[in-house]
């Protein structure tokens, strides 16, 4: 899948390819549906024969009893077949949805965190949850129905031909018009429809956005004005939608027209032929009973067309996500060397996010060993976070190597390497779950005393103690109810718990008040003893703990040295210091 095929298959072709995974199940669903059609024909033939004998031949209970008794079991069988067909079709669609959803999630994990910057997560989750849900109708209704639609009307036609070839002729003549018009009008409506769905999504987004920003709106006394805007936009949307729907419903109108008027026409023609004695009542009645059923699958086609449209709309996003390139991994990873003490070396490393963008890291050479604290500083966009990402194996260098005790990191199993690294990102993520589970991310088997000790070092014990259920308190979605500073301290607690030889932090004390910041820094100082620490700093005030300050700009290292030394050197660092701290 990762190789680029010269011709990219359309989303629908790919949906069809997925079908192969459940072919037998789908075939069973279709078989059950067609069997239901046969039962229906049998039922119609019996009813028509029975009524003929009662009405024309003057038969009573005694004469028609066998036929009469045959009907209820047939009806029961038909109900059972329709139920079974639906269950089986659902099972097929469920299997596909399950696999697609799991594949999507796995694919995003394989692609790694750099492909997906946090802000898009909500959107992506919508595709994984709701987008995949939209495939349901395609496999459980549209595809089985396609086959049933081909088979059942044909069987009915076969039953009608011996009874009345004129009616069969009408059916044969009118039937093709229905798909023809569905497609003809559907094509035009499809485009309009899609635009309409988009604008529906926009309207929904507008509403949500304004509710999200209500506090801001109120601050500027703009909220009542916005209520009027929502009313106006909804109204515009209604007018636009309706102008599309007037046309779109025309296709349904044509369908109905052909189906209904054909049945009426057949009834009238049969009536006159019966009057003239040209056919038996039994045959005429058989046709009348079967004619609506002949058109029913064709009419339903319109409904299932909608399921198809929805699936195709979702498929585009699903497949483009499934095509996300995966982060490269070594096929046969080398074992990691012994890591005490740790010696990390960036050797002339370069990296770009996309082939046509400017290098984010440009020829960086840097070393870091156990017991050393290196601080990375520089303006935003200088490449500090990218350097950390390379060290975490979230991406591999385009040029140069990251060596760990003499082994190229690109040749190692990234999972194994990351077991040795503790990481505090700039905006730590708090998972939905208990406080205990959130801290225990650092070490899965940690017991409560260890967790509390780590929490204490990260200065979270105070606010954890204030939580209603302490460590058992469930933290809301995306850390709802926690301040940024608290989230950062939880992330720090993970680091204290993990006890790893390499620690990478991205501005670990931002958003903390002065008192907490001082305490956390003290704890970090203790932890750093004997370990290698790479810390990214946005503010210069936090640099004094570092053994070495590395100044980056535009992907390159422009200066490095001690804090005081650099301050006096008159370079970028000195300028930044002067701008930030005053005299």
């Amino acid at each position: 899948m990762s190789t680029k095929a010269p011709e990219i298959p359309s989303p629908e072709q790919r949906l069809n390819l997925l079908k192969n995974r459940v072919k037998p199940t789908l075939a069973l669903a279709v078989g059950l549906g067609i069997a239901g059609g046969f039962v229906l024909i049998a039922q119609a033939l019996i009813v028509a024969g029975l009524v003929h004998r009662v009405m024309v031949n003057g038969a009573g209970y005694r004469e028609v009893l066998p036929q009469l008794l045959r009907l209820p079991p047939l009806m029961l069988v038909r109900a059972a077949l329709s139920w079974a067909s639906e269950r089986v079709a659902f099972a097929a669609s469920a299997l596909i949805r399950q696999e697609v959803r799991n594949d999507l999630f796995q694919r995003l994990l394989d692609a790694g965190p750099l492909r997906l910057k946090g802000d898009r997560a909500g959107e992506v989750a919508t595709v994984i949850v709701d987008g995949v849900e939209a495939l349901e109708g395609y496999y459980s209704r549209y595809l089985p129905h396609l086959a049933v639609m081909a088979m059942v009307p044909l069987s009915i036609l076969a039953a009608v031909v011996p009874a009345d070839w004129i009616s069969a002729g009408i059916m044969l003549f009118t039937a093709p018009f229905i798909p023809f018009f569905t497609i003809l009008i559907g094509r035009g409506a499809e485009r309009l429809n899609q635009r309409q769905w988009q604008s529906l999504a926009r309207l929904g987004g507008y509403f949500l956005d304004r509710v999200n920003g209500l506090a801001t709106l109120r601050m500027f006394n703009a909220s009542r004005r916005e209520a009027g805007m929502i009313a106006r936009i909804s109204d515009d949307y209604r007018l636009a939608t309706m102008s599309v729907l007037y046309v779109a419903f025309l296709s349904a109108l044509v369908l109905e027209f052909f189906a209904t008027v054909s049945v009426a026409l057949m009834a009238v023609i049969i009536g006159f032929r019966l009057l003239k004695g040209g056919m038996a009542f039994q045959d005429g009645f058989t046709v009348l009973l079967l004619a609506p059923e002949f058109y029913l699958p064709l009419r339903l086609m319109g409904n299932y067309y909608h399921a198809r449209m929805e699936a195709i709309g979702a498929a585009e996003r699903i497949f483009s996500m499934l095509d996300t390139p995966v982060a490269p991994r070594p096929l046969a990873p080398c074992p990691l060397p012994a890591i005490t003490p740790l010696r990390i070396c960036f050797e002339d490393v370069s990296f770009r996010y996309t082939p046509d963008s400017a290098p984010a890291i440009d020829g960086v050479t840097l070393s870091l060993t156990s017991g050393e604290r290196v601080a990375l500083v520089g303006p935003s966009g200088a490449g500090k976070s990218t350097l950390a990402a390379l060290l975490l194996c979230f991406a591999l260098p385009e040029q140069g190597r990251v060596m760990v005790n003499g082994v190229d990191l690109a040749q190692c199993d990234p999972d194994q390497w990351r077991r040795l690294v503790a990481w505090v990102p700039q905006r730590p993520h708090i998972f939905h779950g208990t406080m205990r589970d959130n801290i225990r991310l650092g070490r899965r088997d940690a017991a409560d005393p260890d967790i509390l000790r780590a929490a204490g070092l990260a200065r979270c014990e105070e606010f954890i103690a204030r939580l209603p259920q302490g460590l058992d308190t469930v933290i809301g979605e995306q850390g709802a109810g926690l301040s940024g500073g608290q989230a950062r301290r939880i992330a720090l607690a993970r680091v204290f718990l993990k006890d790893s030889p390499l620690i990478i932090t991205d501005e670990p004390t931002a958003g903390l008040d002065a008192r907490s910041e001082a305490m956390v820094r003290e704890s970090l100082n203790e932890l750093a003893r004997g370990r290698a620490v790479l810390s990214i700093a946005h503010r210069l005030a936090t640099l004094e703990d570092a053994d070495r300050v590395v100044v980056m700009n535009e992907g390159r290292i422009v200066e490095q040295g001690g804090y005081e030394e650099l301050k006096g050197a008159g370079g970028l660092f000195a300028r930044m210091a002067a701008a930030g701290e005053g005299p």
Partner: protein
Amino acid sequence: MRDVCRLLKLAWPYRAWLVAALGLSLVTLLANVGLLALSGWFIAAMALAGISGIPINYHYPAAGIRALAILRTLGRYAERVVSHQASLRLLAGLRVWIFRRVEPLAPARLEGYASGDLLSRIRADIDCLDTFYLRLLAPVLTALFACLLFILFLWHFSFAVALATALLLLLAGGFLPLAVHLLGRKPGARVTRTSSELRTAVVDGLRGMEELLAYDAAGRQKERVEELNRRLLADQARLAGLAGISAGGVGLCSGLALWLSLVISIPLVRAGSMSGPQMVMLGLFCQAAFEAVLPLPPAFLLLGQTLAAARRIFSLVDEPPAVSEPQKPSPLPANAAISLRGVGFSYGDGVATLEGIDLELSPGRKVAVVGVSGAGKSTLLALLLRFREYDSGSIILAGREIREYDGEDVRRLLAVAGQQPFLFNATLRENLLIARPGAVEEEMVAAARMAGIHDEIAALAQGYDTPAGEGGVKLSGGQVRRLAIARAILKNAPILILDEATSSLDTESERIVQAALEKLMQGRTTICIAHRLSTVQRADLIVVLDKGRIVETGTHAELLRSGRVYTKLYELQFEQPAA
């Protein structure tokens, strides 16, 4: 039941549309049943006439068949158009209604709803309410009227057939939907819950991927997603099974109705008390009548979900606002002098968030409020903005208690550059003009220039028309802050509130923002809230808050001399003894 009544009340303004949709769907249904029954009668009567040679007036029935066919076709089209009109109007009305009801709740009462997922639930809930009218209310009423008419019609010919059909209709349209509703309630509720858990697990997996990878926990998260996925589909399969049973059940009832009508009619026809064509007509009529109840079971499968959505929305809009507006608000004050005397506030958890706050905000004065996080700074701000109601003491604005004014009038006096400015999914221009919709281009550009953001906006390809917000251009934290400052400038209010306007900015951005603020503060009453002290040293008065109380007041120099809380904060931040 109360929820259903409230839902009906909400739909009342759109009753004409709903009744029209109902009427049209009834006409369409009757035309279809009539078409089949009349066709059956017609061919049977024609056949008998052909056999017996007795002449028959075939003009009316034949014309009737054609008329019913056309009526059904056109009726269906009209019904679709009208019901979509009704639905879209209702949806628009519901949105505006909810927005107007939720608006006074922000931000104090919405804090529990802070996460975007809960808000998107509101949106899903509104859509869910829409299905109540279209897919539940309308089909139930249509079925009720139609079944009544059907039974009366059948009764005219045979009481027994009418009774048998009535019982079967009750089974298919009453018992079956009820059973489906009851059996589907639990899996339905689980589906809603599981899919929201699944969404959370996926978002957690994506937002927290760096941590999951770094802590070797990605596999566990994936297992969780797979488990939730499996559970979701299992419950959906249960619901699909119920839908299948109900569809098969309605079909079975319809077949049995035909069968019973034949069983009842056969002896009557033989005895001559019923004609053959009547038997055919009744049989087909009974069978077709079930089209009326066909949509009911799937609709009732949704009932639990729909009512749950309604309850969530009602409980949200029923929350009392944190601040109630005065019946007769005092006129907008001319000057903007505010003084706080002994103001106290508590979030109701027994802890006083603010207590005995005294503060004079006379025009032109620059007051800084400092303190550690949780000291009550943001709460103080919410009280001034009339987002929250103080419990004790008084806040006097131009000689009157602040709660005597309309909240909007009070906020006209205050321009806030906030800690977490919100950017709407709109162009940068629209985002700026929220502060003053009537502002002309020059005023907006001047404000942006003053906030030090104009050059960066002008450098964008689309300039001020660049879309911002979630789907728009990515702005750095510093740029967003400066946009917020430009908004505050544009608002041009006598009191300026800076809430942590420069915290967590990198050094370079902080310098630009600080320069913009200095200009803006000239000649304005300013309240500057900060936990970093570098920004407040030039204030006329510094107020140190700690655990909801004012513990120190004075100028920077005075406070450093006193050597108490402020001095300690200062030393911690600059790690140097206060000289």
